């Protein structure tokens, strides 16, 4: 059974059909790319998958159960986490607290425990700190733990977003243009990081990207969107040489 199954997914904003009849199937452990020209509906598709928008038609199932109509926080609990095209970190919180905020659902202690400052509260907070540092180490961000997120250099902010998303313990990680605004060195580093987290955290990754070097370098399978509908899908070497796809990107 596929981890994520999307069938005939569509959404209309008034008269605009932003996504229409999208079908996707993601096997567990795969690394899949979602590509397409600007305005093709890629980010809208992410917003549908994470519950930011409610689809007008179609179904989304994660591990066999439907997630349509659930709130974003419920979907996050069910196992889908994401990053954003334009970085949306908690700017005025420390790097550590950004990740810690995402651990919200994995560590439970009641309000009363925290008010009374009992031993269990301290133990849980300590465990959280350890977990945070473990995740930050993977991204070489551990030295910045007490820095405000807004003071990190751009490339590191992008990494922190991925770290924060991973802290929610997802089964499926959605990366929205992770390499946007990065120089070739940073992109190469990012490709390594993505490979690393996929193995280390044993997760499935779906990413939106315009950098074809990254896409062809790490994705095993591609879906191409154009004007909200699916234009092609297949392995990168087939899809990226498909005349239809080239036309959609470059024109006639």
């Amino acid at each position: 059974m596929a981890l994520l199954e999307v069938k005939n997914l569509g959404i209309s904003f008034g008269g605009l059909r932003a996504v229409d009849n999208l079908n996707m199937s993601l096997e567990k452990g795969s690394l899949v790319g979602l590509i397409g020209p600007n305005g093709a509906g890629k980010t809208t598709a992410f917003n549908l998958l994470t519950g930011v928008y409610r689809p007008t038609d179609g179904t989304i199932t994660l591990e066999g159960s439907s997630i349509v109509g659930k709130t974003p926080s419920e979907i996050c609990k069910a196992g889908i986490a994401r990053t954003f095209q334009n970085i949306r970190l908690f700017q005025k919180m420390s790097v550590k607290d950004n990740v810690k905020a995402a651990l919200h659902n994995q560590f439970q202690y009641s309000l009363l425990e925290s008010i009374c400052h009992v031993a269990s509260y301290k133990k849980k907070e300590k465990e959280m700190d350890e977990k945070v540092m473990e995740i930050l180490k993977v991204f070489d961000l551990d030295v910045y733990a007490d820095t405000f997120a807004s003071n990190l250099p751009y490339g590191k902010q992008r990494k922190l977003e991925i770290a924060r998303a991973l802290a929610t313990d997802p089964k499926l990680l959605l990366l929205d243009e992770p390499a946007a605004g990065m120089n070739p060195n940073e992109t190469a580093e990012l490709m390594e990081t993505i490979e690393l987290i996929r193995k280390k955290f044993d997760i499935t990754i779906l990413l939106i990207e315009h950098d074809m070097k990254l896409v062809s370098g790490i994705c095993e399978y591609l879906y191409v969107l154009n004007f909200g509908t699916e234009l092609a899908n297949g392995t990168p070497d087939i899809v990226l040489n498909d005349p239809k796809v080239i036309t959609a990107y470059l024109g006639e």
Partner: protein
Amino acid sequence: MSLLNSILEQLINGLRTGSIYALIAIGYTMVYGIAKMINFAHGDIIMVGAYALYVYSSILKLPLVAAIILTVVTCSVLGIITEKIAYKPLRNAPSLAVLITAIGMSFLLQNVALLIFKATPIPFASVVNVSGIRLGSLYLSGTTLVTLGVTVIAMVALTLFVNKTKAGRAMRAVSEDRGAAELMGISVNATISLTFAIGSGLAAVAGILYISQYETLMPTLGALPGIKAFVAAVLGGIGSIPGAMFGGIILGIIESLSKAYISTQLSDAIVYGVLVVVLLVKPSGLLGKLKIEKV
């Protein structure tokens, strides 16, 4: 010596009223930070707190500690309910609609109180039974001591809560980016409810302290401290909790000094004048950070 003494006395008076403003201002600023709205009904929560204490302690004759706890719980629950029925349905509405609703909520609370307790002011002796102390030539009344003590404890507890706990972290995350917080698995509804509960609980505490000082119950008693605390929150930088604490205390001290040395009638005008000047020089308030919108 006597001038110095009287200045010190006025400073302490200012600190006392300022503490009450600060407690109320925290509610305004927290709700603004999380729900991005000015809850104009917040002042009336103080009034509800004062009447609730009266009902629990004078009418039902409950022991004082029980009455105080019940008062705080009543106001917290009221805060959650007002948010759920009046503000939550408007979460995506224009801010003007929310503002008008908040003013409506304020009138509703005042008029329900008027209906139940009538317009005649009810005298209500202070519940604070602590004797004052004398420091040299300076006298600190029991109410002053309790007010300062309670405020310090509440502020320290709140600061620890916001910075050191999971729920506090969730609050900071929601106040920065509600959408991103929700996508990281934080329940926005629960966080907003908690914020209203804490804000209203602090307003209840402020109500109890306020009524211990003025000793008269009226349905409109929350209006003036409410608006002053709002000014304090804006003065300190709305959205910032330390700003609200600071703004409240500063406001109380300015008010008390101008009452004593300039003019009793002009004291309010001076307070608002200071607000105008501060906002002209620093539009985001004393501790507020100016947000630059990138385009």
